[in-house]
């Protein structure tokens, strides 16, 4: 452990700046103009981003063994052998996370200025958004489980507030509630996991818990802790079976979807598992659970994305699917690849969401891809940047998604087996297909716009410039992790290596590099195939009829997929209806009839008594004296008899 010195002692400013911005916009946002609000909101995040980059620069100059810096702010709860200080931890993992979070947040804040410019709750929006960034940075910088948990719940709250941002809309209010309840369900297990960690280790510091994990924990206990922590990750990162909240969360304004439900908050689960990786490594059961849940999620949500027609929901299911990929990466022992994929996915998916926001904006809040088309000539900047994002998502060689996805694929092949790899390659093909189904439907083909759209809204420069910057990141972001097989140095893995014990490290020998190139070739070809198929289905004149025919032939499968594997319907019947029934029973039968009647009866009794008893106080002195005498007589009689 290294004491924070020099620039590193200013680490606290990284989360504090967004917090200051949030406080300003909360307290004064309604008094000042929208211009000031946006300057404060974007400026505070921008400064945090610049500071993160400066920190990264100094961090790289440190020798590897010193890259673990703790900064204790103050001791929050000292109690016996328990102590919970607010302390920040800067190690390679949190370093890349704060850089990504602050950078992407900054771009999305700038974009939001344009996107939300006509909203009357402008200051409220930026208050929530800044607050979210504060909690997210606190989450990734946390030096112990409790601080991480504060950030964890804080981002959940902000997510709830932003999903329900248009609170007068019933569907938005419900979606916010659903997101909150479902993620809280996962958080419950996470809470138990933290308690179990404290019981086992008598400490909640990452710096004390993780290095001692293999000495302290029995395999069974490690499995329990890992699975409980993973429960929290499943909720937050929208993994099967708790993934149902994320598609509904698309009720949020589109930049929020880009920031919270694509780039940052939903990846907190991946970050959490990566942070606790030494515990997961002790338990093969937990590792395979992570991989299996990830695989199920990746496949299920990729298939749903094939048939959905809502531009944002397709991207949401795609996010769920990609998060599944990251968990597979964690489960098969390639945490660095998972974090790498987290970063490239954050760039690409934020780009896609912001592009989708520009499309929605252009067509006057149209979200159905069946009523889009031919936008290429109207909003060229969005078209080109969206193309970059879709290619990066699909895993076309040279762009960011390719390197990170293939790092996971290769680890799955070596550590997980051919079957796992095969399923993932097919999923990658599906990913390419649905990304380009969306892309072709929105930008190419003929005009199918709603008749009331007469003129396209052109995105302002404040919206297109963040798109371009993100497009650059999505294009070149992969070069921080060019694998050994392609003659690269895989810098992201070696940078993250001190965080992850090298138990599963795969080195790039001659044989594995040939294997790696072979795997990459196959997966790229599958991705190409997906794109070509999408082109044939949605652009080329010959294939125009094909989707309709396919839909009729496989109508059962189509219904199954377009209903999202019936997850929502089953949950509605099994949990929601039951719970609503019980709630109704307790409301009408128990609360109104029994409890309220009891309380009202008591109140009536007291009121009635209060009418009668005061009449004894007559004000007549002799009357009181009579009572005294009567009392004395009673007492003396009592003494005489007994």
């Amino acid at each position: 452990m290294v004491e924070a010195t020099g620039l590193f002692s200013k680490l606290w400013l990284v989360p504090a700046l967004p917090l200051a911005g949030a406080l300003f916009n909360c307290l004064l946002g309604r008094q000042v103009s929208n211009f000031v609000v946006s300057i404060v909101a974007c400026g505070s995040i921008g400064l945090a981003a610049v500071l993160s980059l400066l920190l990264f620069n100094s961090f790289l100059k440190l020798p590897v063994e010193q890259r673990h810096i703790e900064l204790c702010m103050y001791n929050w709860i000292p109690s016996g052998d328990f102590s919970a200080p607010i302390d920040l931890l800067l190690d390679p993992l949190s370093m890349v996370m704060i850089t990504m979070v602050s950078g992407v947040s900054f771009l999305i804040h700038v974009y939001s200025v344009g996107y939300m410019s006509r909203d009357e709750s402008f200051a409220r929006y930026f208050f929530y958004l800044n607050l979210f960034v504060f909690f997210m940075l606190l989450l990734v910088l946390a030096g112990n489980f409790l601080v991480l948990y504060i950030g964890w719940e804080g981002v959940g709250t902000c997510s709830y507030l932003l999903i329900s941002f248009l609170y007068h809309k019933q569907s938005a209010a419900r979606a916010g509630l659903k997101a909150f309840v479902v993620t809280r369900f996962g958080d419950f297990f996470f809470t138990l996991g933290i308690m179990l960690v404290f019981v086992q280790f008598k400490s909640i510091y990452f710096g004390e818990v993780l290095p001692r994990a293999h000495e302290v924990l029995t395999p069974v206990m490690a499995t329990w802790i890992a699975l409980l922590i993973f429960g929290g990750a499943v909720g937050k990162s929208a993994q099967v079976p708790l993934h149902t909240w994320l598609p509904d969360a698309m009720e949020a304004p589109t930049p929020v979807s880009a920031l919270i439900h694509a780039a940052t908050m939903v990846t907190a689960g991946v970050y959490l598992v990566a942070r606790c990786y030494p515990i997961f490594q002790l338990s093969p059961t937990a590792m395979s659970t992570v991989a299996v849940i990830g695989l199920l999620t990746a496949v299920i949500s990729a298939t749903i994305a094939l048939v959905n027609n809502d531009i944002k929901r397709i991207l949401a299911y795609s996010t769920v699917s990609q998060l599944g990929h990251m968990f597979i990466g964690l489960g098969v022992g390639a945490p660095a690849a998972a974090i790498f994929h987290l970063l490239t996915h954050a760039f690409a998916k934020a780009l896609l969401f912001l592009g989708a926001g520009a499309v929605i904006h252009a067509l006057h809040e149209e979200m159905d891809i069946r009523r889009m088309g031919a936008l290429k000539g109207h909003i060229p900047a969005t078209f080109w940047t969206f193309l970059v994002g879709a290619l990066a998502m699909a895993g076309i060689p040279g762009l960011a998604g390719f390197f990170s996805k293939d790092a996971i694929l290769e680890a799955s092949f070596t550590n997980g087996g051919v079957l796992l790899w095969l399923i993932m390659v097919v999923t990658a093909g599906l990913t390419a297909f649905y990304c380009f189904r969306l892309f072709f439907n929105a930008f190419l083909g003929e005009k199918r716009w709603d008749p009331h759209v007469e003129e396209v809204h052109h995105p302002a420069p404040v919206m297109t410039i963040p798109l371009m910057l993100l497009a650059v990141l999505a294009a070149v972001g992969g070069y921080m992790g060019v694998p050994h097989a392609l003659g690269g140095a895989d810098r992201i893995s070696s940078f993250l290596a001190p965080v992850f014990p090298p138990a599963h490290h795969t080195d790039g020998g001659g044989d594995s590099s040939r294997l790696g190139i072979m795997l990459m070739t196959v997966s790229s070809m599958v991705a190409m195939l997906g794109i070509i198929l999408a082109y044939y289905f949605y652009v080329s004149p010959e294939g125009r009829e094909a989707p309709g025919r396919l839909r009729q032939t496989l109508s059962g499968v189509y219904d199954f997929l377009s209903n999202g594997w019936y997850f929502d319907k089953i949950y509605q019947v099994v949990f929601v209806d039951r719970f609503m029934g019980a709630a109704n029973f307790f409301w009408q039968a128990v609360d109104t009839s029994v409890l309220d009647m009891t309380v009202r009866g008591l109140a009536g009794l007291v009121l009635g008594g209060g009418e009668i008893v005061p009449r004894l106080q007559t004000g007549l002195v002799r009357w009181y004296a009579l009572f005294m005498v009567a009392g004395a007589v009673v007492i003396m009689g009592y003494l005489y008899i007994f």
Partner: protein
Amino acid sequence: MLAADQYLMVGVVLFGIGVIGFLTRRNVIVLLMCIELMINGAGLAFVSFCRQTGSLDGQVFVLFAMVIAAVEIAVALSIVLLVFRNRATLDVDEMEVLKW
């Protein structure tokens, strides 16, 4: 000894007259006099028990009680005087404003 019982009886009678007078009469001055009767009835009981047991404790009590009774009556009479000046009556049943 017979004498002590007789003193005690006198005390009880004094106290009883005081109680009955307090409950039945309405003039404030009479009520104060009844209180005096009760105090003296109790004092007489003290003194007669003293004669029976031969201790002096009861006599001390009585001395105190007499002093306090004198003080009390001084305060009470001045209050009565003020009440009479304000309300022109000495009837306790008229003095009933302190009620619910």
